[in-house]
Every structure is written in structure tokens, then in C-alpha cells.
């Protein structure tokens, strides 16, 4: 069988794309802050999310390291047999597609809500999907190299939007800490974990690392940096907007509108939006690539490149038809979407580890009796 994907990526690129993967919906809709009643504790929810995610990321990575050169789609067929393994692969593929659909629609909505209300949303979605498909088609190596550059831009712009509205910040908004109990934190933690479930992508990336042994380290870094950036966003948003922070549709966009330095350095939100677009493009490219590879591996195809453009078209169309409105989309991201992706990630991991355990047990017994 010919090699589907011949590219190799470095550990740092791996980390960068994982962070972009987590930060992308946050730059537009920040579900954590939209789903909390008393916003001042949202940074604690981010930390709790990170604490739960680190073991998850480590488990996914360790599993992939046991099957060098094989993606999660391939080794689930080895572990669970061709039928169950393929079914699981299809569910993972469905998750990849769902995520692509969400983010394409979210970016389109972001543009229509914030910048160009009269423009049909299709224009933005098509442009994004075209851009990302073009990148995904060139393979993982190109996407990840771009991803690293975009990551630096993203972090730079994020830090800029965190620091520059300093004259509107009031840190007393962050108190009282935990006055509303832990139950206040449950919805944001669930939505955080929902997005972190997308770290199943690690299973697609590890086989292409040039030094796979570093994968665990970089996966943990990705969770830490991603959560750090989100915790900062949470703190800054609450400091600037106080209790009204959960009223915004696009919190970080509204934050960038608060920037006003000496009455000349202001109205930079369009530049900020450009950075969000780039990072969304990278995330979509990565998911399109992963979905195409998954399809190719599930159905034993010889190349994945031809799948990318059709998938892009499918994603744009589904993005238009899946959600009636922005409210519908936000509701999905906060509730059904989050819970279902946690379920998929949890079930996938449990099944695979159970199968691995049984396999090693059988092998040991055979070895012992033989």
C-alpha cells in the first residue's frame, strides 16, 4: 500500500496546531463565559478543564505511541477488529466533520454579525473552506508549518487584545471568588471539555511526528498554553465587562473594540478579526485533512487529496443547513455539541484501552501457557 501522507512534523508544530485547535472557537464564541451565571469564577473553570484534559491528552498520546506510524483510525481497526473498529472510525470521522461544520459556520456568523451584516454568510464560508481545502490538500507538513506561523500571529494578537484595553479594566470585578459554589462552574467546565475532546486529533498527528517520543510532552504543553491563554481571556473579559461579560455574542471581538489608546490607536477590530480568520483557516484545514485521511484509511483508498475539495463543499453546505440561527448554533455548542463530543472521546478512549488490556492479557496468558 502506498503511503497516504508522507509529511513529517516537528514537536513544536504539533503543539502549535493543537493550541490553535483549542483557541479557535474561543476567539469567536467563548462558550465558557457565555454559559456561566456568575462570570467572575470562569477562570477557575478553565483551570479545572485543564486539569481534567491533561490526563486525557496523555492517554491519547500514549495509546498512539504504542502503534508507531498508525493513526487512531488504523489502530482502532487492529484493536477492535475490522467491523467494530471501522464503526468507531466512522464516529470519529463524524466528529471531525461536525467540528469543521461548526467552525465554518461560526466564522461566517462572526463576520456577518460584527463586520458586514448585509453580506450573505455563504461568501465567508466559501472563502474559508476554499482557503483551508487548498492548504489541506497540500498535506500535513504544509498545514502544520503554516499552523506554527499562524500560532505566533494568534498569540501576538491575543496578548494585544488582553493588554490594550487596560484603562477599561477593573479587577475588583473578579471578586468574590467562588461565592456561588462549584455548581456555578459545571456548565462552563462541560463546554470546555467539549472543545478539548477535539484533542482526539492527537491520534491523527502522532504518527507523523519526526520524534514521536516527545509527543506527550508537547501535548501537555499544548493544554497548558491553551488553557493559560483562555484563563487570561476570562480574567480580562471579566475585568473589562464585569457581570455583562456573558451578554456578548462575540466576547473577544467586543473586547478588541474597547481598545482606545490616545484616541488614535483604536478601531483595530478588523485587524483582530483577520487574525481570527487565519487561525480558523488552519483549524479547518487540519480537520479537513484529518477527515480525508480518515476516509481514505477506512475505505482503503490510495490517496486522500481528491477528497478534500468535495469535503469542503459538503461542510459549507452542511454549515448552512445544520443551524437555523446563531442562537441555534450557540445552543448546540454549549449543550448537545459539547456533551456528545465528550461522550465520543470518552467512549473511544475506554473502548480502545479496554481492547488493549484484553489483548495484552490474552497474549500474556498464551505466553504463560505456551
Amino acid at each position, binding site marked *: 500500500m502506498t503511503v497516504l501522507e508522507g509529511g513529517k512534523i516537528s514537536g513544536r508544530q504539533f503543539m502549535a496546531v493543537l493550541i490553535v485547535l483549542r483557541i479557535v472557537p474561543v476567539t469567536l464564541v467563548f462558550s465558557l463565559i457565555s454559559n456561566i451565571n456568575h462570570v467572575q469564577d470562569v477562570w477557575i473553570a478553565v483551570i479545572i478543564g485543564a486539569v481534567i484534559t491533561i490526563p486525557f491528552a496523555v492517554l491519547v498520546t500514549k495509546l498512539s505511541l504504542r502503534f508507531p506510524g498508525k493513526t487512531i483510525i488504523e489502530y482502532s481497526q487492529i484493536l477492535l477488529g475490522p467491523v467494530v473498529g471501522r464503526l468507531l472510525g466512522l464516529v470519529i470521522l463524524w466528529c471531525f466533520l461536525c467540528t469543521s461544520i461548526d467552525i465554518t459556520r461560526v466564522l461566517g456568523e462572526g*463576520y456577518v*454579525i*460584527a*463586520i*458586514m*451584516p*448585509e*453580506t*450573505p454568510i455563504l*461568501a*465567508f464560508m466559501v*472563502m474559508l473552506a476554499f*482557503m483551508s481545502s*487548498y*492548504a489541506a490538500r*497540500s*498535506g500535513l*507538513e*504544509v498545514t502544520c*508549518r*503554516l499552523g506554527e*506561523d*499562524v500560532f505566533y500571529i494568534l498569540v501576538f494578537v491575543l496578548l494585544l487584545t488582553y493588554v490594550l484595553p487596560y484603562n*477599561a479594566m477593573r479587577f*475588583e*470585578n473578579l*471578586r*468574590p471568588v467562588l*461565592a456561588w459554589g462549584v455548581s456555578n462552574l459545571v456548565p462552563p467546565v462541560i463546554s470546555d471539555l467539549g472543545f478539548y475532546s477535539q484533542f482526539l486529533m492527537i491520534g491523527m498527528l502522532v504518527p507523523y511526528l519526526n520524534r514521536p517520543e516527545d509527543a506527550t510532552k508537547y501535548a501537555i504543553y499544548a493544554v497548558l498554553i491553551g488553557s493559560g491563554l483562555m484563563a487570561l481571556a476570562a480574567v480580562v473579559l471579566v475585568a*473589562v*465587562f*464585569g*457581570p*455583562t461579560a456573558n*451578554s456578548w455574542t462575540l466576547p473577544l471581538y*467586543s473586547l478588541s*473594540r*474597547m481598545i*482606545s489608546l490616545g484616541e488614535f490607536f*483604536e*478601531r483595530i477590530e*478588523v*485587524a483582530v*478579526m*483577520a487574525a481570527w*480568520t*487565519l487561525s480558523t*483557516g488552519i483549524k479547518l484545514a487540519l480537520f479537513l485533512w484529518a477527515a480525508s485521511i480518515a476516509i481514505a484509511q477506512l475505505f482503503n483508498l490510495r490517496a486522500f487529496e481528491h477528497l478534500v475539495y468535495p469535503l469542503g463543499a459538503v461542510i459549507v453546505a452542511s454549515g448552512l443547513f445544520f443551524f437555523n440561527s446563531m442562537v441555534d448554533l450557540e445552543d448546540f455548542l454549549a449543550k448537545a455539541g459539547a456533551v456528545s463530543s465528550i461522550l465520543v472521546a470518552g467512549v473511544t478512549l475506554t473502548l480502545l484501552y479496554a481492547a488493549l488490556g484484553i489483548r495484552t492479557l490474552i497474549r500474556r496468558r498464551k505466553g504463560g501457557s505456551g
Partner: protein
Amino acid sequence: MRVRRYMSISVLLAIVPVVLSMTGCWSRKEIEDIGFVLSIGVDHAAEEGEIMITVHIAKPFAISTGVAGAVDEKPFWQVSSTGHTVFEAWRNLRQQSPRRPLLHHSRFIVFGEEFARGGIREAIDFFSREGEVRETNTVVVAKGVKASEVVWNEFELERMPAEGALGIMKIAVQELSTAVMVTLNDFLQILEVEGHEAVASRAELVRRPSFEDPRGELKRETISVSGRETGAAAFKGDKLVGWLDKTQTRGLQWVKGKVRGGIIVIEQLETEDKLASIEILRASSAVIPKIVDGRPFVLIKVGALGNLGETQEYFDPMESQEIWISMERRMAEMIKHEIQAALDIAKYEFNSDIFGFGAEIYRKYPKEWMKLKDRWDEEFRKLDVEIEVETSLRRSGLTRRSIQVVRKEED
């Protein structure tokens, strides 16, 4: 091969957002078709249940000054329109404006007194939901008049009403501390913060005496009605409850730690009715809530630095250290007096916690606050407040002692 592909994708990725942000497609707005709104006022319309908005729009062709052929006319236009909601009224404005009015550059959101007393809830949602309005707009209430009259107050030295009002307000905030500038973001936030009532800027009309210059004709008529932007408007919930004057506003700003400048006039010596001016340099404050036996109690600590700016009677600080110290003491008393003035009006007249004492209690004692919350109005009225002011006079300007008038006429 891969490198070239990488390059071409980078270029594509870079170009697409740039092209998108140039708004070349559907949402294009040409500068010739736009009217920039600089402030927007909200009032009740003459028709029952309708809202009237008044905007002041810049006239670009009349702005340029001193250039040959410049149009000698008002560089702005004020126009009103009505509707059942703010948004409808705003959209109805298009029936009168040949250019599409845009709110991106607006500076002020003004509410008429009558409208504000009835509650502004029904008007504010538009301003946070509409993407054209910036959260950095200043919220103003017009005292005694409709917002429509204040929106186009003219000022000398600035051709645009909004720029003039902004200039005056900024100076009053920075160098007098007798005005507040509350952004839309702050205002909306405080409506949601527990135990904190909002204030907004106060604007009113003043008649300027007209000077008949006997020496020649005036080239441009002096402005007969102008605006005054000092003081503050106090709210309770979303309803206007009253006005703070200059002293009370500075009292409020002392508590908030927002005093940035100003003059404090004190008696120079206890025995004589001569005065001295102290220039405020910096100030800081801390509001410390305490709960003693279930009863709330608030300690306000204010620190202020000042310079001696002027004395009416001969004064030499080198004569005795005590005079200097007693000046500091009298400065502290004046500050206390200003704070007390603000406290009294907020407690007994408005019964509105514009200082946010309740919010401080909520932040420090969230559990106790839950019990206090529902009867905070009475508790606030009864609240014991202790004011501690620490002042320090730093310098005495370019002179050390004052100029002494030697009595010569009695020889």
C-alpha cells in the same frame, strides 16, 4: 516543491482577510454616502409612547477652516426622528438624511431628564446590541431640558458641538474632578453589579451674555447658549433620581479614587478670613467594608497629595512647621466635608448607593450580602460610614515665602 506550495498558501492566507476587510463586496459604504453622527440624544416624543432621537451629524464640506473658498456655515446638522423604539427611530432618520447616518464615530449618548426619570431600560439595549455603537461612548443626562437641546450645544474654540463638550468634560474630569465621564460599558456594567447604582455625566444649557463690541462689527456671532458639563446624574436602577453638584461630585470622586486634580480652598489661618489655595496632585482611596455584629459598616480611606498654590496673607512655612501641618489638616477637613456632602445627598435624598458600598460588601462578605441584599435601601440609609483622610502638602511653588506688602502709607 513543498516550499513553493507553502509560500503560495501563505500568500493566499494573507491576502484573503485583507481583501475581505477592505469591504469591497456587499457591505460597501462609500465615504460620500455617509453622514457621521457625533452624538445621539434620546427623548420621549410628542406622540404618546414614541421615542424621539436627535443626532448631530458632521457636515464634512463645512469643516475645513481657514482655507480659501471654505463654506461659512455651521459644520454640523441636528435632526430628530421618531419611532416606537430607538432602532425604529434611528432607521426612520433615513427619511430625512440624504446621506446614510453612521454611529461608528459617535461620542455621546444623551438622555433627556424627563426620559431618564422614567427609566432608560427601554432605550439602552439598542446601544449595546448595535455593532456601530462603541462601548466607549460617554453616557450623559441633560438637566432640565430635552436631550435634543443639549446634543447640539455650541462651544467657542471648537466648531463641532461634540468635540466642544468632550473637551470641557475631559478638562473638568482631569483638572477639576467636578465631573464624571462614564462610558457606556461602565454604565451598563453597573446596572448589573449588585449593590452599586450608576452615575452619568450631567449636561445643561447656560446662557452666555452677549457682548456688543462697540469697536467694530463681529465677524461671527458669539454663541448665546452654550453647555456646561459639570456635576453628575445619579441613578437608582435605571431611573434618574437626582443631580450632584460640583462639590458632591468631587466628594463621590474622592471615594472612588478618581480625583485627578483640582483646587481646594482653605482658610489660611484660623483667626483671619484670608484664604489659601491648594492644588491637588494625586489622590487614592480605599473602601473597606466591615460587618460588626451583623451590621455593615464602611471605612473610607482617602489619601491626597497637594501643592500650596496661593495664599492671600503673608505666609512663610519656614517660620513654624506647625502652620504647614495645620494646612494639611484643613485640607483633610475640606475633603471630608466634600465626601460628607456626597454621602448625605446619596443617603437621605436619593437613597441610592452610588458609591458601591453594597458591591464592596458583596465582594468581601458574599454570604452576609445575600442576607442584606433585599433590605439594602434601608441599610444604606442607616449605614455608618467613617472617613479617614490623610493629606500631605509637598511643595510651595516657586516662592517659599509670600510677597510682603510693607506698610508705607502711614509714615
